[in-house]
């Protein structure tokens, strides 16, 4: 996990027909922690939402066979149930709950030491890649995090 580069997913653990599980480790240090908060570093809630959105996004990308890109459209009922600090090892799970025409809805949650620390319902618009460079970048990242169907074992 590299917070300042929005690299929220380290490794895909499992990928199923409508669900995904990934691992991410919060870095021990990050410029983000200098401001959030001085003397008491915790991952901002918006970045936990981003982590859930990226996890669900990888599920949808896999289901779309990397041919179309999901873009965040709506976050519903986001809950932050516990603090996430430096070094925390996270398991992030997402499940597609609705496959619409040009959109999809997923439920996602973050676990830390087996305890749920965040959850949300996330809606995505799904559309053709608007730029070839984006498609190439997503394909390269898919390989880095070990998305099944793409080479690469996944790494932090």
């Amino acid at each position, binding site marked *: 996990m590299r917070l300042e580069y929005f690299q929220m997913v380290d490794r895909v653990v499992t990928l199923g027909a409508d669900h995904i599980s990934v691992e991410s480790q919060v870095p021990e240090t990050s410029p983000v922690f200098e401001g959030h908060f001085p003397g008491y570093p915790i991952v901002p809630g918006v970045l936990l939402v981003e982590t859930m959105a990226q996890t669900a996004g990888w599920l949808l990308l896999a289901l779309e066979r990397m041919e179309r890109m999901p873009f965040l459209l*709506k976050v519903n009922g986001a809950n932050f149930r516990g603090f996430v600090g430096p070094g925390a090892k996270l398991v992030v799970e997402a499940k597609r709950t609705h*496959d*619409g*025409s*040009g959109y999809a809805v997923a439920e996602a949650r973050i676990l830390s030491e087996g305890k749920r620390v965040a959850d949300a319902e996330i809606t995505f618009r799904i559309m053709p890649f608007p730029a070839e460079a984006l498609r190439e970048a997503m394909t390269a990242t898919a390989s880095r995090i070990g998305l099944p169907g793409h080479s690469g074992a996944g790494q932090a």
Partner: protein
Amino acid sequence: MTSPVFDRIAEIIAENSEVAHEDITPGAHVINDLGIDSLDFLDIVFAIDKAFGIKVPVETWTQEVNAGTAPAEQYFVMGNLAQRIEELVAAKQAKG
């Protein structure tokens, strides 16, 4: 006199937007007259999908309108929209 499907769609629109229920008439264009934006429209489609157990083919409809092979009114005027939904529900029931 409106159909039960029309009335259910009108309820969904009123619940998912700021449009007053009485403004949702059979001749109203969902976007031009009711002023529903794209996010609200997807919320409405999501609710229709769930309520009727169907997948409203919005992508196909939009492509047809953009390509000029179908008039927007065919899908996005309330009375016609309700009729399209009824057709989708009937097709689903026919499949069993």
